């Protein structure tokens, strides 16, 4: 006997929701998925009417679903938002150039304006060039730090009020676990917040409308909606330690599917005792971007690349910041330490 949809009790169920275990038909699943994103947006008051919102688009499943759902909800519930796509071109041959093609197709399908900012125009370095100097071990540090700033710079060029990113529930839960494994209290506290407060001039507030959407459901949604997305792993190796958190989360999910939400719930309700030292936010002495140090991480990494000392930004070398700012030469010993590529 075919299983009927537990919501409409009319059509045949085509899937079992990974999040709740309910059997649903295609239409009811779409409805439930979209409705939940809508609830998330409304409950957290993510957007205000007439705001310009940039959707961070990589061409992957999360951002494609995000763009689709945002466009749809904007019409269905009349948010009155002006949406646009924002992409970052890291300059990774065989990966980003292909995925940007997908973004360009999405732009036409959804009829949204698109802005692409590239590492090359912002920093003068492509990821390919960085990897050739840094090697495959710490390249993700460069990419991550540069992307964060690139998105902000792109957002300022587009004059948007907010950026929304495609982070899903799995990503958030994974980050909670990873910060516990690393003992990083400061990040543990902020990694579950759904939107960042407007932190200052150079920074555009960000939010995660898909925060409570399971990765599996995003894939199902994209599959049943036949969305056009790009699915290839980055050709430069993924972050190893995050992999442990990821494995744990996937195992937890297989034991109890609600685990992902439970981890997020835990993360949201952890509160840190007063008096724990938290980094103070300041601005970078060189580019004016937010930074807890004298120089922001992107400037330190860039300085390292330009001076041929790639290790400068890996690990902690705060005491060198003043030297870099005043353009003093580094001592021979310092240079030797920061030069070696085989780390």
């Amino acid at each position, binding site marked *: 006997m075919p299983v009927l949809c537990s919501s409409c009790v009319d059509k045949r169920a085509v899937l079992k*929701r990974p999040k709740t275990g309910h059997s649903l038909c295609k239409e009811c699943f779409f409805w439930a998925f979209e409705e*939940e994103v809508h609830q998330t947006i409304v409950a957290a008051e993510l957007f205000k009417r007439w705001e310009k919102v940039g959707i961070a688009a990589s061409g992957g499943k999360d951002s494609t679903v995000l763009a689709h759902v945002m466009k749809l909800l904007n019409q269905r519930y009349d948010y009155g938002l002006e949406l646009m796509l924002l992409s970052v071109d890291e300059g990774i041959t065989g990966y980003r150039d292909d995925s940007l093609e997908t973004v360009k197709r999405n732009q036409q399908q959804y009829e949204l304006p698109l802005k692409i900012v590239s590492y090359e125009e912002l920093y003068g370095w492509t990821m390919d060039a960085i990897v050739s100097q840094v090697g495959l071990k710490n390249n993700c540090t460069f990419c991550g730090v540069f992307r964060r700033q690139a998105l902000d710079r792109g957002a300022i060029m587009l004059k948007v009020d907010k950026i929304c990113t495609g982070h899903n529930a799995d990503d958030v839960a994974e980050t909670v676990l990873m910060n516990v*494994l690393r003992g990083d209290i400061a990040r543990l506290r902020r990694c579950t917040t759904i939107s960042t407060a407007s932190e200052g001039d150079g920074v555009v507030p960000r939010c995660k409308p898909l925060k409570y959407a399971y990765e599996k459901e995003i894939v199902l949604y994209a599959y049943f909606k036949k969305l056009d997305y790009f699915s290839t792993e980055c050709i430069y190796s993924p972050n190893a330690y995050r992999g442990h958190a990821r494995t744990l989360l996937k195992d937890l999910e297989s034991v109890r599917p609600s685990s992902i939400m439970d981890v997020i719930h835990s993360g949201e309700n952890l509160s840190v005792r007063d008096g724990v030292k938290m980094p103070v936010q300041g601005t970078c002495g060189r580019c004016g971007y937010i930074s807890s140090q004298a120089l922001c991480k992107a400037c330190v990494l860039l300085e390292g690349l330009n001076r041929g000392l790639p290790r400068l930004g890996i690990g902690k070398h705060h005491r060198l910041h003043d030297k870099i700012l005043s353009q003093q030469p580094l001592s021979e010993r310092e240079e030797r330490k920061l030069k070696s590529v085989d780390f």
Partner: protein
Amino acid sequence: RYLSLLAGFPMCQVDEDYHDELERAGAPSVSKQCVKCKEATAAVVIRVGDTFCRGCFKEYFIHKFRAMLGKNRIIFPGEKVLLAVSGGPSSCSMLSQVQEGLSQNAHKKLRFSPGIVFIDEGGAVGQSAEERRRTAAELEAVFKATGFPFHIVPLEKVLDLPSKVLMAAPSPSEQPAGAYKTAVGHFLQSSSSSSSCVTQQEEKESSLPDVQESSTPLLQRLMASVETLTAREDLLSTLRQHLLVHTARSEGYSKLMLGDSCTRLAVKLLSSISLGRGAQLAQDTGFSDSRFGDVTLVRPMRDYSAKEIAFYNRLFSVPSVSIPSLDTKAPEKASIQRLTESFVIKLQADFPSTVSTIYRSVPNLPELNRTFYNPRPCCSVCAYTSFNGVFWVRTCDEQAAVRYRAPETADVRTLLCYSCQLTIKDMVSQSPCTAAGSALLFPKSTQEEKRKHVLVQVCCPLFRELVEK
């Protein structure tokens, strides 16, 4: 000599032959001298580079225990302290440390009066009556040797608990900052006049568990009504905790010492997060937990790794008893608790700082202020008290199911914390935790009355039937 070079080596089953191999394989790279006295040959490697000789290891181990109690100043001289001993290496080591601290030749004597409690969980785990008797007899021998009063309590007793066990008894009036010093002063005066030793207390004989024949099947039915091992373990630990607190309360102890090691706490922290217990973390894993008001939970073993404890027990012949638990011999993915345990232990083998890093985040979490206690809502199953005002949160299932079902207002789940809702959800459908069942259970009672009865009645649906007959 016992020389292990692997940080994540499974410690409880130290195998002689395996050991010799290890020694041969890696010994040359490690200094064989004790890092402390720099004279004697090393007997233990606690962490990479930390080699200790027998004598220095003992001194280090004992000092750590005193330092933990001394630093926190939470146990007052002359206070009655109940040691929760499960029979495992960690709690048995704690028992031996207390014994050591109270002995006449101790350098700085501990000044509290201890008692021991063992909860016999055989009924929930599925041991036969014969096995349970044997275990209890083995432990009794260990306890008798200490000379402390002891209580062997079968878990079945939890079914007879008065419902007020969940209600925080009023805690003794807030202690001012100088209270500890005054108490020490009083104690010194009184003990010098009477010159009697604290340990010279009359020894209370506790008989072997006299379980009522009828309550074992009841407990078994309760455990069987829980469908997943995750929820079953969660329920068992809740029941155990209530019974421990109850025993302490009824026997007049004001502190309850738990033997959680730092390895155990790291596992507990990670599984608590995975079970949605993030808000309770500070209470569940901190040095002290005062959620029960008049009985404070203390964890003095939280600075020892499981490895240190295993080596100490082995070198100084501390007896421990191996008792099967719910997840003994269960596969890795049998439950969330089991999964996080094997995850932490495996990661610890590759990254030796895993446990200490996870555990390091604990003291940074806030502790519940006692004065906040009473007016705040409190979970009817685990007695978790919310301190940010947010108490009842819909679980993911309900959150997602906005469309399918409107939430009922008179739902028992509003009395439970997030994580206990999850546990109750895994119980069989006929348990009265569903909304319909709750209406049946509490037709006209107030919120307060409901709360009192939830532990016994929601957790033990079958128990209720029995009472009515």
